[in-house]
């Protein structure tokens, strides 16, 4: 589960749960994902940072929903995927206190070799535009980039998503 364990796991493949947000393809380690839910009935939390959508109730459990669009500073407005409604990717309790992220559309599960994930923090002679954009916005959340057949997959580290809020709280 540790992204940094690259030595032995150089050629190990990682299952990625991929999703689309603002026309970009993102992926998170599928082992961090608990479930995918419809985004219904968000209760806004006034005074919370702008990238926090609010609370939703999933089977009696209250879940914080984060809007990464805001975090990354993507264009506003909810563009939804083919299904018409946005979805919430819910993370496992091992990742953080219960929370999920708002995505436009959930895509396939992709298996990628860890060696193909380019750690954007290393050798970044010619980083792609999207990576540069993300770097400006948030550190740590984007773990690396993985070129797929058709497009780039931005690999996110779920454990860092709420790091900024926590830092702000202190």
């Amino acid at each position, binding site marked *: 589960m540790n992204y940094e364990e690259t030595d032995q796991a150089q050629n190990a493949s990682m299952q990625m749960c991929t999703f689309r947000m603002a026309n970009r393809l993102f992926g998170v380690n599928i082992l961090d994902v608990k479930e995918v839910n419809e985004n219904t*009935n968000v*209760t*806004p*939390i*006034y*005074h*919370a940072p702008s990238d*926090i959508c*609010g*609370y*939703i*109730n999933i*089977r*009696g*459990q*209250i879940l*914080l929903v984060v809007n990464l669009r805001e975090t990354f500073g993507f264009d506003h407005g909810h563009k939804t995927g083919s299904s018409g409604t946005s979805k919430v990717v819910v993370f496992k309790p091992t990742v953080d*206190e*219960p*929370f999920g992220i708002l995505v436009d559309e959930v895509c396939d599960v992709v298996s990628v070799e860890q060696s193909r994930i380019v750690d954007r923090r290393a050798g970044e002679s010619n980083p792609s535009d999207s990576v540069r954009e993300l770097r400006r916005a948030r550190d740590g959340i984007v773990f690396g980039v993985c070129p797929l057949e058709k497009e780039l997959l931005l690999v996110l580290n779920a454990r860092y998503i*709420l790091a900024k*809020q*926590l830092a*702000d*709280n202190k």
Partner: protein
Amino acid sequence: METNNDILAEYVEESREHLSQVESIFVGIQKSGEVPPGSIDELFRAIHTIKGSAGFLGLLSIGTLTHAMESLLDSVREGRLEMTPQISEALIEGTDALNDMFDDVNKSNETDVSGLVSVIVGLNSGTAPAAVPAPQAPKPEPKAAKHAKAEAKKAPEPAAETVEKRSVSDVLAQFPELAEYVPPEQAAAAAASPAPAPVAQEQPKKEAQQSSQPGEKHEEFLRIRVDILDRLMMLAGELVLVRNQQLMHLDQGDSTLRSITQSLDSVTTELQETIMRTRMQPIGTVFSRFSRMVRELARKLGKQIDFVSEGDEVELDKNILEAIGDPLTHLVRNACDHGVEKQEDRAAAGKTEPGKVVLSAYHESGQIHVDIKDNGRGMSRDVIRRKVLEKRLKTEDELSRMGDQDLLNLVFLPGFSTATAITDVSGRGVGMDVVKTGVEKFGGTVSLSSIEGQGSVVKLRLPLTLAIIPSLIVQSGDERFAIPQVNLEELVCLYDKDAFTRIECAGAREVFRLRDTLLPMVRLREALARVKMFDEETLSEVTEKNSEVRKEMADKYQEAEDSGHPIHYSLNFAVLRSGNLRFGLIIDHIHGSEEIVVKPMHRAVKGITLYSGATVLGDGKVAMILDATGLARHYNVRDVGGGKDSKKQQATMEDGSELRSLLLFSNGGSEQFGVSMQDVKRVEAIETSAIEKVGAQEYITLDGVSTRVVRLEDGLRVQSSSQPENMFFLIPQNARKPYGLLVEKLIDSGHYEVKLNKESYQAEGVEGTALIKKKMTVLVNLDQLMHLVDGMWYGGQA
């Protein structure tokens, strides 16, 4: 090294359990004055287990002390010694010292226990020779003793196993008495093959349990991790929601399905209740620590104080139990330090019984009551008065108007402390204030009563559980919010014209005149919309904006009314209290009350002061729980009214008139009279035929009390009453003797702007006159009037 720390931590935890067992046995012995059979064995086993592990963990002081205690207990057990008060006292002291050492177990070796040990050893040896003339004499419980011996042999054996860096001989050197227990070859073998520590520690415990006598009541306990319990609770919550959905989609025609659903329903409910109960713990766990504390305090203060706890079995939510620890500590300390007097003072006051502090818990009307009672000197009203004046918390004038209870409640004011000297026990001037806020924080209340010279009682009222709280559901914009019922004082709804005329501006903020107080208003909508704390600028901006809105509303209303199609407005606000602050929270709708399950805020949004948590409402939507304190702080609410009980609150308006709450009446004639509502306790409708005459005075019997009847015309030169059959009787608030004012007709009551005129009509018993409801009204001062009517009878007492 980490494993060593783990072992140590486990040992400390286990030892604490043993110590609490020991303490409870001693408390039992002290309470009943006799030693229950088998209790000495239990004591011995507990102390022995602690000693067993102390040795190999290198805890020398603990080892030495427990060894001495064990030997003493052994003598008692074997019948060589009687369990005298001195012995139990010494053992209790030993237990206290052990408790202290376990507080910081790593430094325990620095603690000097030699004094205590020599006392205990002295007790043991001093009488021992006399008591052992016949070694072969039948012992009270030879079997149990043998058993314990066997254990004693076993205990050090696993002990040696866990020693890593310390050789067995080292340990033996420190504890020569252990040598006889450890067969050398066993110890060596054990040292060679270190076994996992937990197992080793479990062993003596298990044996101790096995050796307990048959027929003894066994209670099965299991330690469960709190997070597993929380998870269970959450799952039960989910199950409830699933059941609700099932109920919703139930086809009523299918009887089989219906009965299945019904059993699902009942099982689910029961499951949830049972899981809730797992969080409940007996309050005795908190009470038990006070027996030790009182003992220590008594010694430190040189007083003799008995401690009694009642209702140890009353169960409370774990969170509340944790939260009341501090307030209770404060209160018990207060009772010992300020309440109970020194023995010689008690004797001087004619009190024969020793000082006593009683903690009792009981259920009443869905709440848990905890009383802290002492039979000490009580609270001196004079001292309170003096302190309040000294610290300028209230003025003399205010004090003179206060009732006894109000006076007592002054001790809850921040910055109040009656301790004449700051001792290390208490008296830092924060005491009761901290207790009050601490208890109120989790929805409890504190009240106080005290009789000078006889003692004080502090009553705490606590909710059963924090997890489920009654609350009011309100709406602002599209969102619903929950307001905990404990913060809620009342709801006010203003209709039509009132909706925009009754809210006024005072400086930069909006206020409402609620009876005799000026209530600062908070608009939830505005508070939610602004992340930044409100400063004067934002406040005046908001106030201005809303006064514009009010003006518009007024115009529209007028227009609509003129056109003959009136529109209806309404404005709701909830009066909230947080600490000493009261404010009105303007909301859009009120939905009603609901019992909600409180969930804490996610740690990423915990910093937001507006909320105290979140909850899932009946329809499955999440609602935020508003925090009154946070809200007040965010909106920069300050107390604009002053204390509730002071007349200062009759806020003075710009033109010198003041808002007062009055009861208006007439005495038959055309004159209109008024009295301050605060001065009236209640109003009775009476029949004049029931009035009896005794000499020149008239009396009426109310609730079995003969009450003096005073007529307005007795004291004032006003038209006398025509004496119809039905009249009204005003009973004043601060009467020292039963009396009341007879009036003919009640006109109205309410808030009136009073511009007092003292010149036009001057008489004793009259405050002055004012124009109320376009009529000249004589404001009667009840107190003065009574003086006037019967100076001897009433004034003589004053």
